[in-house]
């Protein structure tokens, strides 16, 4: 099953099983079914519960907030995640703030779906990874399934099992990707689903080189970077015999630090990989927390890779130079292995 199908089916299930679930977004009606087809078929099956919206991103999020405050379970689709900044005030100063400032008198169970990421040649305003903008928003969950997760299940969790605001990040480059079944044996990797009380709904997938005991380096990544880190891990192992363990996080915020710390502490070398800007990005907080968690005599060496401080060029060739590639991750892995 493809990533996009998993999400689409989950929305069908959600609308089917819970009458509080509603869908709002631009161009979501059939036959179009949304710019990336995640909403395909929904308006046909549930004509009264799928609402096409004008080009009004702030109002789309605001409407979702109002519906949620009155007991609905709205899922709003932002056509391109780049447009989420139009709703930044709505997210920070209303949706997430109301439950806190109103002393928990109300809840806002709202899911905001944001297709993020580049690699499609859409250029500077249609390719960004902007969820990191919201890293210091209290009371906001940021969730981003990889192709090793069950994206549909995670979406269901966000819609029904969470009572708060969720920014649900779908990397555009994953939509057409076949999901990887981590319960099937794999030629190179072995998989383990990690999670405790802090990340129950949104597990982290641990990927290690099959039948290899040693672990030299931990790569931490999420969402659209997942296929890249797996390839880099494979390459590092076969070309350099570096044993890389990948942690594919789905709970981008709050960081599942318990889970991550346990793995990182024992390995001691960590490379954080993200598609968003490295500067002030996701890895910054993660690095700061990992640093602070170092035990007295076992230091952790942390490095980060992310997009460069620039716009995302339209030209495919130039875009590649901006965003982290397999080769970059592989190189940084080697460097870290040799450096510390």
């Amino acid at each position: 099953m493809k990533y996009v199908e998993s999400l689409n089916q989950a929305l069908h299930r959600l609308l089917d099983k819970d009458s509080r679930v509603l869908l709002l977004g631009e161009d979501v009606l059939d036959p179009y079914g949304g710019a990336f087809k995640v909403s395909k078929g929904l308006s046909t099956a549930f004509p009264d519960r799928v609402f096409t919206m004008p080009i009004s991103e702030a109002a789309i999020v605001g409407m979702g907030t109002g519906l949620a405050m009155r007991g609905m379970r709205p899922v709003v689709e932002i056509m391109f995640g780049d447009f989420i900044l139009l709703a930044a005030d709505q997210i920070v100063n209303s949706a997430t703030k109301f439950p806190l400032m109103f002393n928990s008198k109300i809840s806002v169970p709202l899911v905001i779906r944001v297709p993020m990421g580049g690699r499609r040649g859409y250029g500077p305003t249609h390719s960004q990874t902007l969820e990191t903008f919201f890293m210091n928003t209290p009371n906001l969950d940021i969730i981003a399934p990889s192709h090793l997760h069950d994206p549909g299940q995670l979406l269901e969790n966000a819609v029904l099992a969470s009572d708060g605001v969720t920014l649900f990040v779908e990397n555009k480059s994953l939509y057409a990707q076949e999901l990887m079944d981590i319960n099937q044996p794999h030629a190179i990797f072995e998989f383990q689903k990690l999670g405790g009380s802090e990340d129950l709904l949104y597990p982290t997938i641990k990927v290690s080189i099959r039948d290899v005991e040693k672990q030299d380096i931990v790569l931490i990544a999420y969402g659209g970077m997942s296929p890249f880190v797996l390839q880099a891990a494979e390459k590092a192992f076969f070309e350099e015999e570096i044993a890389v363990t990948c942690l594919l996080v789905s709970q981008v915020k709050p960081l599942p630090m318990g889970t991550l710390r346990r793995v990182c502490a024992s390995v001691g070398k960590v490379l954080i990989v993200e598609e968003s800007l490295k500067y002030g990005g996701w890895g910054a907080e993660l690095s700061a927390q990992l640093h602070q968690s170092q035990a007295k005599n076992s230091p952790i060496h942390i490095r980060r890779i992310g997009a460069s401080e620039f716009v995302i060029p339209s030209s495919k060739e130039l875009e590649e130079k901006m965003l982290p590639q397999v080769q970059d991750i592989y190189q940084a892995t080697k460097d870290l292995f040799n450096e510390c």
Partner: protein
Amino acid sequence: MLVNLSEELYRKVILIRLFEERVLTLFSQGKLSGTTHAYIGQEANAVGVISHLREEDTVFSNHRCHGHYLAKTGDAVGLLAELMGKETGICSGLGGSQHICNRNFFSNGIQGSYMPIVVGMALTEKLRNTSAVVTAFIGDGTLGQGVVYEAFNIASLYQVPLLVVIENNRIAQTTPIELNLAGSIAARTQAFGIATTELDTTDAEVIFDCAGEIIANMREDRRPHALIINSQRLGPHSKGDDTRTEEAIADMRRLDPVPLLEARLTNQAREQLRAEANEIISQAEFLANQSGVRSLEMAK
């Protein structure tokens, strides 16, 4: 419905007026800190409109929300405690003057930001086939915010039972409407296909009658409506920040909604209702002073 309309409206109007005056006094005595935005002069709007609302009808208000809140709930105790930052406040001191929530009443301090939120709330009422209406209060200055028009458009497209009360006091903080607003307010709401009523009055009874008709209709036809009330802010924007001349304000005072209602009451009724309001407020102050501050422990 009401025994004596003037008295019933006055009961609420005078509670708001005296409450706001007490709040300004407490500020000037240093017994309140932070901020406040007095509703003095506009009481007739809140009372005229909200008197028609029921428990299940939602009201969303702005920085100048005390009047709306008192008209909807009568809860001077919770409001004053909230202003004082006490545990017994409406939001136990977290929200303060402009961020309150009690049952179906809400306010927020970002101008205009809740307009799409009330559209979502009104859509819920429509989907659930209730007869409830959602009412939002905004000021003339807030018509500068773009999201307001996103909300007008969607409210009209989906025909939701949203009453937008635009309290046009012809000023925003210190800026007169001429410097803030081009064209006309009524033309703006109408341009989005929203039925619009404009009132040029500070008479609570006139507002009451007009709002009554609008709201009764909305309970049936489930459509949005804009009610523009041209009125006057008689006090400072917040506290002590009035840049208008004494003369200009004196001029406005001729339309003060309080004496306007009082002229229709017996001396006895007026005095009694004033006394009752004062008693409510003093009691609220007493209770708020009794209350402690809630505990809050957080990692920094």
